[in-house]
């Protein structure tokens, strides 16, 4: 006993820690709740420390699923999602998720193992130049070269990922650094002289915009995901109401403004609604708040907002003027900019006619589908989901037709209820992302809307929802095809359906059952009614295989190269 006491005493005098210890301490310091990680050779020292850690570790069945789950977590919680992957293949498997997070500005902290420093560059077993690979698709990346740097680098990484325009940061840790022993280094402050995001708007530009608003006859606000990242939806609503300006959303911005509000026009873009696209085309003042004028939103730039004075509020100065010439640039956090605009309390524009025109468009050209059809329509399924969840579920989608139907028919009442892969358009994103979303908001009703194609890219993650008993509701809009590809082939390639139909499928119900998850196949509206009533409020995972009309297309639609006003399929 005495000996033991003596031992612990000397221990505390000269405390030594490993790199992995420092890493976990740094994560605890950042209040990390959950890690999405997959072990392997190069991260064994870290995993040994995780064995005793209080942080929840989620083991996806593929690293790509892990990073998409982290993206879903980041989108809903507003905090960085944390991922661990091993060196080589573990690291390359997360590349898609990094590119996706970079495009959609999601904060992630990704740790990758690396071979020991002594063998870097020798093509060692499971070595990959992950810094080289990920430089263009991360906000920043690091390789830790010395154990003393671990606390500082992790602190910097969290700061970079979650401030300014959020994005993924990767930290590569050679195995010997994680295993090496040192005395805890002194605390160092974040020192990034080249990184100082501008948050406060320039007063003169705010004045200029206020004046432009008071002169405008046909103003619109285009609100993107920047509003959500800045947690500025309350300010957006206040400003729009104060100035009586109609609000249009981008795909990623949905939820920033309540869809049931009288000033809400709809989503714009390739499959946006007629009123929103015409609103952008006809407006004389376009106030972009936190959107990046993506090509799927603008259509052909030549025809985009031809009569408008363009104002653009963005935290990333490089986005202003990138695609659309801008006369009122405001580099700022959306919340700060909106607060200042509200304070200006400018004279609202006289634009009764403009609102009437928009309402007329909305009434005359709503989204439509054949409500009398015999076959179950995917749009109907989305409408039912909306009605039965009171528009308050977290909807996570994959990419394709179902994504557009979800965006069109699920009318979000509030912010941070919508997770989708917008910029990169990553199939296989939806289902794993829903896992992260559920972990971020355990009490919420989370619906993962997938196509039959995309779901098959990440079916393996069924294991997680079973393991953690996450009550995710998987909705597969099954049309036995890669629907969006099929639609384009029908319209632009003379219905030559080259490799877009997938008639051979697993029984999704049996697949779910193989993981001990309840599954239902649903072929009619009546069945849908009954099953949805039964499962939507349950606290366990469930898979719903909706057999929908395989020939259904998404409309309205803007063909590539066309302007927003050249929509097709605007009326039945």
């Amino acid at each position, binding site marked *: 006993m005495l000996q033991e006491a003596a031992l612990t005493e000397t221990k505390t005098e000269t405390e030594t820690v490993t790199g992995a210890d420092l890493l976990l301490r740094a994560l605890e310091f950042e209040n990390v709740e959950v890690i999405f990680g997959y072990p392997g050779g190069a991260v064994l020292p870290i995993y040994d420390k995780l064995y005793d850690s209080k942080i929840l570790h989620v083991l996806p069945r593929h690293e790509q699923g892990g990073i998409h789950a982290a993206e879903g977590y980041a989108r809903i919680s507003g905090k960085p999602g944390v991922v661990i992957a091993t060196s080589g293949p573990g690291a390359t498997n997360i590349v898609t998720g990094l590119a996706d997070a970079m495009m959609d500005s999601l904060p992630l902290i990704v740790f990758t193992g690396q071979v020991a420093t002594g063998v870097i560059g020798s093509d060692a077993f499971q070595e990959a130049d992950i*810094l*080289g690979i990920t*430089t*263009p698709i991360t*906000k*920043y*990346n690091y*390789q830790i*070269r010395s154990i003393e740097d671990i606390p500082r680098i992790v602190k910097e990484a969290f700061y*970079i990922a979650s401030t300014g325009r959020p994005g993924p940061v990767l930290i590569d840790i050679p195995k010997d650094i994680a295993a090496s022993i040192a005395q805890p280094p002194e605390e160092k402050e974040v020192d*990034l*002289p*080249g*990184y100082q995001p501008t948050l406060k708007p320039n007063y003169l530009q705010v004045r200029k915009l206020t004046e432009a608003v008071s002169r405008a006859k046909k103003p619109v606000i285009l609100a993107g995901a920047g509003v959500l990242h800045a947690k500025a939806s309350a300010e957006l609503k206040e400003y729009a109401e104060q100035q009586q300006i109609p609000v249009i959303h981008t795909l990623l911005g949905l939820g920033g403004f309540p869809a049931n509000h009288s000033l809400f026009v709809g989503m714009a873009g390739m499959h946006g609604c007629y009123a929103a696209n015409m609103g952008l085309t006809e407006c004389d003042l376009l106030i972009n708040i936190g959107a990046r004028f993506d090509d799927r939103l603008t259509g052909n730039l030549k025809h985009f907002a031809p009569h408008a004075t363009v104002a653009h509020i963005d935290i*990333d*100065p*490089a986005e202003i*003027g*990138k695609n659309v*010439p801008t006369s009122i640039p405001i580099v700022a956090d959306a919340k700060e900019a909106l607060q200042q605009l509200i304070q200006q309390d400018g004279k609202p524009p006289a634009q009764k006619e403009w609102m009437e025109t928009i309402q007329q468009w909305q009434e005359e050209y709503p989204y439509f589908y054949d409500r009398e059809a015999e076959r179950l329509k995917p749009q109907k399924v989305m409408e039912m989901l909306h009605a039965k969840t009171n528009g308050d579920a977290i909807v996570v989608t994959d990419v394709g037709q179902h994504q557009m139907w979800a965006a069109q028919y699920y009318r979000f009442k509030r912010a941070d209820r919508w997770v989708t892969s917008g910029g990169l358009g990553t199939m296989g994103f939806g289902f794993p992302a829903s896992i992260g979303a559920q972990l971020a908001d355990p009490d919420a009703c989370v619906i993962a809307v997938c196509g039959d194609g995309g779901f098959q890219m990440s079916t393996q993650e069924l294991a997680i929802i079973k393991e953690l008993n996450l009550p995710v509701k998987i909705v597969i809009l099954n049309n036995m095809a890669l629907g969006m590809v099929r639609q384009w082939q029908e319209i632009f390639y003379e219905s030559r359906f080259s490799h877009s139909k997938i008639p051979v499928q697993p029984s999704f119900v049996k697949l779910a059952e193989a993981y001990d998850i309840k599954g239902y196949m649903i072929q009619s509206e009546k069945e849908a009614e009954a099953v949805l009533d039964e499962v939507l409020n349950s606290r366990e995972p469930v898979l719903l295989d909706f057999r929908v009309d395989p020939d259904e297309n998404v409309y309205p639609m803007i063909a590539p190269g066309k302007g927003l006003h050249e929509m097709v399929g605007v009326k039945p």
Partner: protein
Amino acid sequence: MKRIICLTVMNRPGVLNRITNLFSKRNFNIESISVGLSEHEGMSRITCVVHVEDDRASEQITKQLNKQIDVIKVTDITDQSIVARELALIKVQAVPYTRNEVYSLIEPFRASVIDVSKDSMTIQITGESDKVEAFIDLIKPYGIKELARTGTTAFPRGTQRNSQQHKSYSII
């Protein structure tokens, strides 16, 4: 149009990779890039010469470079009064009876011979890109065996004239 962009960057691993990566990612056409230490410890200076279509494209380059976390400062100095220099080493064929001819070309360009062998000589020339270009054209007929250029490095002059004025006449 040609733009000269000066960068001050943190001297961190991979920083040059980040900059060149950005040029290829954003599809910017780069003519030359030169890197070296700067007057501040831990910081390097990069001078890039790029070709862009219009002012908007050059603004994009500047903004994208500025967004990089390791980049402290970006200046497009093209429209300023600047000093710009490039160094070239040229190994040219020169047998004894053409050597004098080559020497006579070197002098007005204030180039210098830094190595001579039986059948060749190596010339060092410094100056603005145009001058180096002109000299290379002139020396080409003699047969250039090897050529190495550093690319332009530049910064603004200590005293700036009004750039509008500066544009209207040449001081040379």
